[in-house]
């Protein structure tokens, strides 16, 4: 079951995990909005440690101003559910 719905505000987890991840550095710790649900896909971080488990992947839209301090564009990044937490109110 998908934990987040389209429109939800989320935060990409901060920090720097050991090993392979597909959470790009430039969005870590930043807030964005779920804009699409891509269905469930195998989580690469765990697969490399021998655990095969699929979980929801979301398209998360970040404002350039939040990421870079400037810019009017948006960046949409596809993130596994484990990479996300609910945004602070």
């Amino acid at each position, binding site marked *: 079951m998908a934990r987040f719905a389209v429109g939800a505000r989320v935060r990409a987890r901060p920090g720097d995990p050991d090993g*392979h991840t597909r959470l790009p550095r430039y969005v870590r710790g930043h807030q964005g909005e779920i804009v699409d649900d891509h269905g469930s896909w195998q989580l*690469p971080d765990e697969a490399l440690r021998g655990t095969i488990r699929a979980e929801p992947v979301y398209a998360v839209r970040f404002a350039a101003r939040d*990421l*870079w301090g400037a810019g009017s564009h948006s960046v949409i990044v596809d993130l596994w559910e484990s990479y996300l937490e609910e945004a602070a109110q």
Partner: protein
Amino acid sequence: MGGQAGFGPVLAGDEPPFQADWEMRVAALTMALRLREAFTGDEFRDAIERIPPADYLAMSYYERWLRALELLLAEKELLAGHGPATGHGAAAGDGEAAGG
């Protein structure tokens, strides 16, 4: 890589997917090994990311692929006993067989 500054302009005319014959051969070898399930796409990406950063930045795209293939095949011992440096027992002193 995303957002990192200082890489200069995008060479928009830099078109050919493969700029040398060996690059195409690395891509073909990678595809063959993937079809054989010698490693997963995640393992391949991870191997590329484990290249030390200074080397990573100094290498071309397909040099990184080649290094990742060498790394994965060695780690998984898929070539064990088949490398030119380790076979050929009695012929090891033969210059041609040793292959430099």
